[in-house]
Each structure stands twice: as structure tokens, then as C-alpha cells.
């Protein structure tokens, strides 16, 4: 009972692990390119939850928070580039189904 009511580091880590797996599963299952991007965002969020939790329960310093901010900013940049690529993809193939982007196959 104490483990249920007293929230500790492990609670956050388990939550992040499930989020991570869900994100990974989304990345593998979605065929829509933007769906895959959303899966990546889930994975990044799982990592961020871990970082903040370690920063709070572990060292008590701001290392984790600073890294989390870097991750958030880089995720925004990544989304911008990914969307630009998807727009090109869509302009060429008239779809965002990643299975259709196999023109380089011999």
C-alpha cells in the first residue's frame, strides 16, 4: 500500500517505459508518415518524463531539466523538418503512406 500511495522515482520510470513502448509501437504500426512522427513525439516525451524524474529524485540539480528543454526544442525543429519532407513526399506521390515511398527499390 505504501508503494501505491507514496509516489517515488519508480512510478515515473514505469509510466515512461509504457509511454516509450506505446510510442515505439505507434512508429512501427502507422503507415501514415505523420502518424510515425507522432510516435516519435511520444518516445521523446517518455524520455523527458524520465529526465525530469531523475532530476527531481536523483541529484536535485537542474541537469535533467536543462536536457529536457533541449529535447523539447529539438523536437520542434525535428517536426518542422519532418513536415517539410512529408510535404515533398506528398507533392511527388500524392499520399503520405510511407509504404509507397519505395521508388529506390531495385
Amino acid at each position, binding site marked *: 500500500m505504501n508503494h501505491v500511495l*507514496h*509516489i*517515488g*522515482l*519508480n*512510478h515515473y*520510470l*514505469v*509510466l515512461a*517505459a*509504457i*509511454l516509450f*513502448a*506505446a*510510442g*515505439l*509501437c*505507434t512508429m*512501427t*504500426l*502507422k503507415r*501514415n508518415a*505523420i*502518424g510515425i*512522427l*507522432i510516435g516519435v*513525439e*511520444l518516445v521523446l*516525451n517518455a524520455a*523527458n*518524463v524520465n529526465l*525530469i*524524474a*531523475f*532530476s*527531481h*529524485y*536523483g*541529484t*536535485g*540539480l*537542474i541537469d535533467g*531539466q*536543462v536536457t*529536457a*528543454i533541449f529535447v*523539447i*526544442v529539438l523536437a*520542434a*525543429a525535428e*517536426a*518542422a*523538418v519532418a*513536415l*517539410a519532407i*512529408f*510535404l*515533398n513526399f*506528398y507533392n511527388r506521390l500524392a499520399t*503520405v503512406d510511407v509504404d509507397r515511398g519505395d521508388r529506390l527499390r531495385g
Partner: protein
Amino acid sequence: MLEAILFYGFAAMALAGAFGVLLSRNIVRTAVWLLATLGAAAGLYFLLGAMFVGAIQLIVYAGGTLVLIIFGVMLTSKNPHMRFAPRRAEVAVAAVVCLALVGLLVWVLLHSTWYVGPIVQTRAQWAQTGVNEHPWAHDLQAVTQFLDANHVAIVDAKGVPCGPVTLAGLARAAWYELTVMPQGDQGDRRQPLHDADGKPMSGDQLLAELHALPPQDRAIDDAALESAIAALESPDAPARTVQQVAYACGDADLLTDADGDGTRNIGLGFLGVYLLPFEVISVLLLAVLIGAAYLARPRVPASGGTGGGR
């Protein structure tokens, strides 16, 4: 109790969002489920005392990245209810792999020993960390010894003593030339220093008492102490916290900047130890700006068929 309720609420929201993302077949709804996860993650950050990161998560992730994603959906889907169903076999394989991954991760997490709580519990362990080699460590040690000798405890906003935690954190803060984020549930609050009677004690009071000790009992030389007291007594000095006392022992210049606020420390970190990553990421963002603009520019439809202009 409240923390548990809030944690489980946000966790349920995050998981509902994650499974919604996983199971939803409509891409816009997928994005809305992601919003639930992002919001819940921001709530968890608030719960962990990382207010600034939570706010940034809301502004940049929910207000920027997600809008960008939905914008991309609008631009790339002809019919609003576009569906791409994965094959059965794919679903089965993915489910097995991901469940196995969750099981493995959770097993590993629950069977590893994470160091939770105070970084250093005893002075002997503190000595092993190598902090003592830092020039400021002596001063910090002196503060610790003084606190211990005078039965001074540092209490958080609820009055719970958190002495060794914060002092060890201070030592590491000095090591990284940063201030430390106060621990405890109320991560963002300033922590008043209390003396043995439970009365709030100001930093300069503490320093004055430290000053009164015979020189052989302390590791701070008189000059450092003088400058520290001078800085503490300057009109610019805000509310005195134990961090400031630590800084006073180490570096008087930093004193007025440190007031036990996590956000302030993040700012100091960005322009201090993390300056190089910060600058690298700025350059990367500039590259992304140019690259995305180049990739997404409107293309003149290829006439003549060569397309060599690319």
C-alpha cells in the same frame, strides 16, 4: 496523498493519450490524443517541481509542434477521414515486441537500485565523491560543520528538515558552479533557514555566527568571509537563502543572482555550464529554419521533363 491523486490522474491521462495515439485510425484524432499525453506530461513536470519545463512544454510542444503537425495533416490529406490500416501480421508482431519491451523495461527498472534521495548521506561518502578537491569545498564543509555543530536544520516549506540533502546538493552545485534547486515537494519555494528554536534565520546572521568562530575552527579565510558578508549586506541582495550563504563562501559575485529559484538556475545554466550545447542547438535551429524553408518552398511544376534545376 494529494500528490498520489495528482500523479495517478496525470498518469492515467498520459497513458490514455498514448493508447489513443496507438489505436486511433484517424490521423487528426491521433494528434488530439497526443495533446492529452503532452498536457499530462506537463502536469507531471509541474508535480515534479519543474515549473519552467512544464510551461515550455505547453508553449512549444502543445502550442507549436502539435499545431505544426495538425497543419501538416491538413495539407497532406485529401479526404478528412483518411485511414491506413496496418496488416494483421504487423499488428501481431508489433504487439508482441512492444509488450515484451514493456515487460523487460519494467522488470529492469524495478530490479535496479536507483539512488533516490540525498546524494551523499554521510560525510565519509561525501569525501568519496571528490567534491573535496574543489577549492570551494572547504568553505561548504565549514558551513556544514557549523550547521551540524549548532543544531541548525534547514527545513522546507512544510517544516520538514532536509539538511544533508540540500547541503550535499550545494556541494555539487559548487562543483558545477551552479545553484541548486531546493528539494522537497514545494520545489519552487524559497527555503528559510531555521535555527534550533525554529525561528527563521537570515543568511547574514548565519555568516556572522560563522565569523565569530575562532579561525582554526573554520576553513574560510577572513577575506572571503568579509566579502561574503559585504555582499549579503548590500542593498541589492534579495531574501537570503542557504544557497547564497554557500555562494558567499565561494564567489560573492554570484550572490545576488542566486535566490533558490529553479528557473533562475536554468537561466544561469544556459549561460554557464551549458553554454556550448545551447549555442550548438541555436546553430542547429538556424540550419533547420533554412532547411525547412528550402524543402517546403513552392516548386515550379517541371515543364520539359528534365528537372535538372533541382
